[in-house]
């Protein structure tokens, strides 16, 4: 009892980060991460529950108390190995998971105070492992990052379409189960949304590259520049000798608002804005060839993580004024708390309960403003959130030279159109069995955003885990 009280007195350890005024001038990652001592202190806050709620809240069921216990003891290798039993992308998840809705939400300490900073600890041990690899690479005899053990080769071949979080999970799981895995990626580098969508200041691309590199060391093959549905079809993959195909292509279709003026120069989909900046490194233009409009006065529509990413990117591109315009209220904003907090700290303004009606352009077809309308909250809708209702006569105009539409993404039909025997729902998403990810086409699985609609990295990874088990069963036992 005495010991427990003592533990509760240690406050949740803050993670040092770049000051807002400094970081909006650069693209470096915002938090610096824990030092080993801080991590051990934070880990010591965990009371090692017998029935850990945190583990139940994790979509990939990491043994969280066990990895935290190793961290507390300073056995960081033990901690990372424990995580990697369940999650091959810990450095990514430690950064982008909505922990407050998952593991940390269920932490017993959260009932009375602040939960253990599970995400920060996961991030710390993952970064520690990578830094060990980097340190030893300088030695004469580099000791490789410890590779997970692979089951004996089965001789079966799996094609994974899409190299985002779910594809990487499926690939990582199946390679360890002894299958040959090839990942097909449409872009020139692997990583999917981790590379084109999430900005450098939130998830450094070197980390994604290191995680992909780890997969390569395990034996996963990556074929970039391959659009499945155009360069090669799913049926042709079977003809080439693949025994199973996993479709994890994400929600790669921009959703526009279908309001007048949306084709003006300066109006971007979030997909385009972030792809130019992240994948193509337009923030380094003209050293990198891809341009991006560096607006002074930027309006971002939507309030999810993607909207926060776009708003914070606009600041770093040099905007004087950046606004998030959202039709509901603060409570309904779907972004991670940390992203909203970081955006506010950096000076992003929030225009809540407002919706755009028309974009306004000049005679050259360039955006100069947006006409909006104020909203109020009415009765809850299907999603359980209170429905925004327009207030008559409340129209107002706002100047802006750049607008980013970040109200979600839909199902990209390129692959599904070319694969006739896969059934889709009416919104174009692939119909897959919830437990296994099996589609209506034999030997084909699907998971992640192309099944669920736009969700989070970790949910896509959770889906990937289930699919990998199902594919493994199929390859060893049958459909």
């Amino acid at each position, binding site marked *: 009892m005495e010991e427990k009280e003592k533990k509760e007195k240690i406050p949740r350890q803050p993670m040092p980060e770049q000051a807002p005024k400094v970081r909006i001038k650069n693209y470096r990652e915002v938090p610096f991460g824990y030092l080993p001592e801080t991590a051990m202190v934070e880990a010591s806050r965990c009371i090692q529950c017998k029935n850990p709620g945190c583990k139940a809240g994790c979509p990939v069921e990491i043994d969280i108390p066990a990895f935290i216990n190793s961290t507390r003891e300073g056995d960081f290798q033990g901690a990372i190995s424990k995580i990697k039993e369940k999650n091959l992308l810990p450095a990514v998840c430690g950064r982008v998971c909505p922990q407050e809705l998952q593991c940390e939400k269920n932490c017993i300490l959260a009932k009375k105070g602040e939960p253990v900073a599970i995400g920060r600890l996961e991030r710390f041990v993952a970064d520690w492992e990578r830094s060990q690899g980097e340190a030893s690479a300088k030695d004469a005899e580099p000791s490789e990052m410890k590779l997970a053990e692979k089951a004996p080769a089965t001789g079966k071949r799996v094609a994974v379409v899409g190299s985002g979080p779910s594809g990487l999970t499926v690939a990582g799981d199946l390679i360890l189960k002894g299958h040959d895995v090839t990942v097909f990626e449409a872009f*020139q580098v692997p990583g999917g949304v981790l590379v084109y969508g999430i900005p450098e200041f939130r998830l450094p691309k070197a980390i994604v590259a290191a995680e992909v590199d780890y997969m390569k060391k395990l034996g996963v093959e990556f074929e*970039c*520049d391959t659009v499945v549905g155009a360069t*090669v079809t799913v049926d042709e993959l079977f003809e080439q000798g693949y025994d199973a195909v996993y479709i994890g292509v994400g929600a790669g279709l921009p959703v526009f608002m279908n309001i007048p003026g949306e*084709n003006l120069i300066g109006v971007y989909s979030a997909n385009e804005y972030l*792809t130019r900046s992240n994948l193509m490194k337009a923030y380094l233009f003209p050293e990198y060839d891809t341009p991006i409009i560096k607006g002074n006065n930027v309006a971002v529509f939507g309030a999810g993580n993607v909207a926060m990413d776009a708003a914070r990117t606009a600041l770093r591109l040099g905007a004087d004024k950046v606004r998030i315009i959202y039709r509901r209220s603060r409570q309904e904003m779907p972004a991670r708390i940390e992203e909203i907090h970081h955006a506010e700290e950096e000076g992003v303004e929030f225009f809540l309960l407002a919706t755009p009606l028309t974009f306004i352009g000049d005679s050259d077809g360039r955006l100069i403003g947006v006409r909006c309308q104020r909203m109020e909250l009415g009765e809850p809708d299907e999603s359980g959130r209170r429905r925004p209702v327009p207030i008559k006569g409340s129209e107002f105009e706002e100047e802006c030279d750049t607008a980013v539409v970040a109200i979600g993404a839909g199902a990209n039909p390129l692959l599904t159109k070319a694969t006739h025997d896969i059934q889709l729902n009416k919104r174009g998403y692939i119909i897959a069995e919830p437990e296994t990810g099996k589609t209506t086409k034999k030997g084909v699985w699907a998971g992640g955003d192309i099944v669920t609609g736009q969700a989070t990295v970790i949910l896509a990874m959770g889906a990937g885990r289930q699919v990998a088990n199902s594919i493994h069963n199929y390859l060893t036992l049958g459909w």
Partner: protein
Amino acid sequence: MWRCTLYKILEKQELVPNIHLIEVLAPAVAKKAQPGQFVIVTIDEKGERIPLTVADWDREGGSITIVFMEVGTTTQRLALFNAGDHIYSLVGPLGIPTHIDTYGTVVCVGGCYGIAAMMPIARAMKEAGNKVISVIEARSKYLLFWEEELARVSDQLITTIGDGSHAPERWIPDQVKHMVDSGGTIDLVVAFGCTYMMKLTSETTKSLGIKTVVHLNSVMVDGTGMCGCCRVLVGGETKFACVDGPEFDGHQVDWDILLARQRSYQEEEIRSLQDWETWRWRRASQKNSA
């Protein structure tokens, strides 16, 4: 692996000043390419992704032919690549292929790089049993190319020269109008080339009541319908040129929006070209002093 073996340039030619042909090793694309399709090319790790039309392919040899015009930094730099060099990334074939059918008389019109891009379309239209009349235009006679290639796949080849060296002076829309005025019937016009030519041609054929398809060259990033950069208004609906096109009904295209959006990055393009030229001069002067 794929990156060191693929996308090797097998042949490089300057067809006419500023218009170049490259034959690139890309077996997966060569196996599938159809008339009217394009690839997205990134010349090096820092390069931008640009769409280039596939002008021809060798399915067995695994190579594709691309004809491009020097307009911006990327195409200027690509023009300096030679046989043996490698392109960083090349993906395709993308876009919906040209709809090939038996129409009757098909007039294929092309200008600039579109002359080459038109070739596989004219060939396929001819193979489908159409009477194919190809009309190609250039500002001056020395800028015309592939007359023989096009003549081989056409029933008739008409060349038009803008500078008057080739009387009577007629641009493509005038040629189409002239054909109709002299009693010819045209069932379909296919246009490939600069946006103004396609716009003017569409306006002419609209008044003549001739079905016209155009091949739009919007600015693109991914080329797979993911970003919406290439959006264009067709018949009042927003379409993505990369996946819904690039072939559209020329009478339905909102040309003003297309032309405006093509100028989205005009300032950046100038800046980029200046930087590139400065870099080139600096390198040249360093070589000289060394």
